[in-house]
């Protein structure tokens, strides 16, 4: 990790919040941790419109989108996944962190979310997960 990583292989991650909640302590701490793990992080304020997130993910060609959700904003993450697919971003992974009731976790995974991180997840685990999935994402994009 860190210095050993080639510049080109550093994951590019978007950390953002959609919906209405504005508590962003968790997303800020995760963004800082991913930066310290050697990744390139784009961090936005809360209340991003889904269309704006798709535009950003398109232009910056991010590998992973991390959605921080407290309240119940995770309920509209499936809408985001659909919007990403419609825009052709099939390979961009979406992970969700925050308070997600157990009965909703499977719903999110079925909707295309790669992984849900609950409160108490060590920052290291989140970073390692992203490092693990990025090479496959890049490989799929480069395939012809």
């Amino acid at each position, binding site marked *: 990790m860190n210095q050993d990583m080639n510049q080109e292989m550093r994951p590019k991650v978007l950390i953002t919040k959609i919906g209405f909640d504005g508590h962003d302590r968790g997303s800020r701490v995760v963004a800082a941790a991913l930066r310290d793990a050697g990744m390139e992080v784009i961090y936005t*304020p809360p209340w991003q419109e889904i269309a704006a997130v798709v535009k950003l993910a398109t232009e910056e060609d991010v590998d992973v989108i991390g959605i921080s959700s407290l309240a119940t904003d995770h309920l509209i993450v499936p809408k985001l996944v659909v919007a990403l697919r419609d825009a052709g971003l099939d390979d961009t992974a979406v992970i969700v962190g925050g308070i997600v009731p*157990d009965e909703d976790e499977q719903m999110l995974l079925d909707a295309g979310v790669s992984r849900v991180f609950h409160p108490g997840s060590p920052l290291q685990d989140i970073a390692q997960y992203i490092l693990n999935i990025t090479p496959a994402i890049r490989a799929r994009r480069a395939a012809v």
Partner: protein
Amino acid sequence: MNKPLDPSLLDTRDPEQLWQRQYAQEIGRDRAISNRSGIPIQPLYTAHDFDPAARAGDLGLPGQPPYTRGIYATMHRGRTWTQRQLIGLGTPADYNERLLALLAQGTTAVSLIPCNSVFRGYDMDESHFELLGTCGAVINTAEHMDRALAGVDLARTSCAMNDPSPFTLLAFLLATARKRGVNWSAISGTSNQSDYLSHYVANHMFFRIALPGVRRILGDHIEFCNREVPRWNPMSVVGQHMQQAGATPAEAVAFTLASAIQNAEDCIARGMDPDQFLPRFTFFFDVSVSFFEEVAKFRAARRIWARVTRERLGAKDPRSCRFKFHAQTSGVDLTRQQPLNNIARVTVQAMAGIFGGLQSLHTDAYDEALSCPSEFGARIAVATQNILREEAHLTDVIDPLGGSFYVEKLTDQMQAEIERVMKIVDDAGGMYEAVESGLVQRMIGESALRFQQAVDCGEQTVVGVNAYQVDEDPRARPINTRPDPEAMRAHLADFARFKSQRSQADVARALGELARAANDPNDNIFGRVVQAAEAGCTHGEICATLRRELGFGHVQAIV
């Protein structure tokens, strides 16, 4: 592994020295401990750490400056703290049902949390349907407020509205009072969390309109309320958001007092008299599970505020110098793992707040970390307060920890740390400047990261998360309560009907006045908000008008 005691070392006549040596011998490897504010904690405190005779002036007595031991002579023994539980869910009717149940169980005041869509400044027909009413009541008009507070005697019940600038919920409440024939001079309560600075910094939930605009609206709001709703507390300076965002307890107090000073100075600049508005300033704080630290934090805050109001803000009336606060038990200490443990945590937090001398308390439900709290959890939270008061008799003695060597020393140290951070803000040009430049956000971010790292590496234990974990049966977790979609659809339909039937002329005129007021420094924006509420304007329309005139509230993204 105990070495045999070396008798020569124990040869001393000084009992304290004897204890120190015995301690050093027996403890083996001792570890350095600091509390969350970074203050080192000793294993023992003695008269060397605090001499009551020498410090009588700083300690004082309850109801007398510097108020270290409490702002009233009687404190909870005379009047118990207000049990004010925050609730909000679904339609106005859903809210009303839960409210009446809570009042029957012993809460003594109303606190209303609106839906997140309302927090963002939107009406229900402008928002994602899935998210309506999941975390707060969907109230967009005066009529909705009337329904939400059905059966509540407004002249006798204190109401806290959790609604940021431009405070439409209070406007709806006032419209409801007028409709019911209740005089505004009888209305009591608080514009809870009206402190725009804390919203800009930490709880972005509440930030709708551009920074200079909300600064102006708050001034208008304070002026209007002091004049027209004299028993209302329009200024609730918030420490909770910053502590929840990761500020240490000392930082949270420092930034909050700095915000209070900023808001007070803004009022003075408008020509208001400190003794007129300061008595209606209240504070809203988080109380964490770091028990003694929290008690010391509040005692130190009282002492500092007593001096600041007199020396810096020019207050002459002793009532202007009292640090009145509502405490909410800290949600960030609660865990999703083994949620019933949260009941124990909330109990400790509540005790810390009570010993800290709060005026009003909200206790979290144990399932706070899982979803919006259930009725079952909310009931236990209220019972907790009743048990502490009536079974543990925590109200029988005023400031019972006063005089403790530890607590007094810690109060001094917390005061020093708070004042150190307050100076940083002063050097940056005051709280408004410090916040605009991002300084406060960066400091809080660093504290948050440090705490998370301490948890991740095991230095700070969180039971069930990084220690004492068990395999849990997810089915044991309570089911999430969501509002009934049918009821919400009916609410939407009703809303559409309301909009089509009201007087469009009245609405247009009221919004026009509001827009003009936004550009006229001599007009009172909040006064126009109240008029708009009475004319049938919706929350979203009022917010949209002010956003257009004063600018949309963007927060900085600072990592």
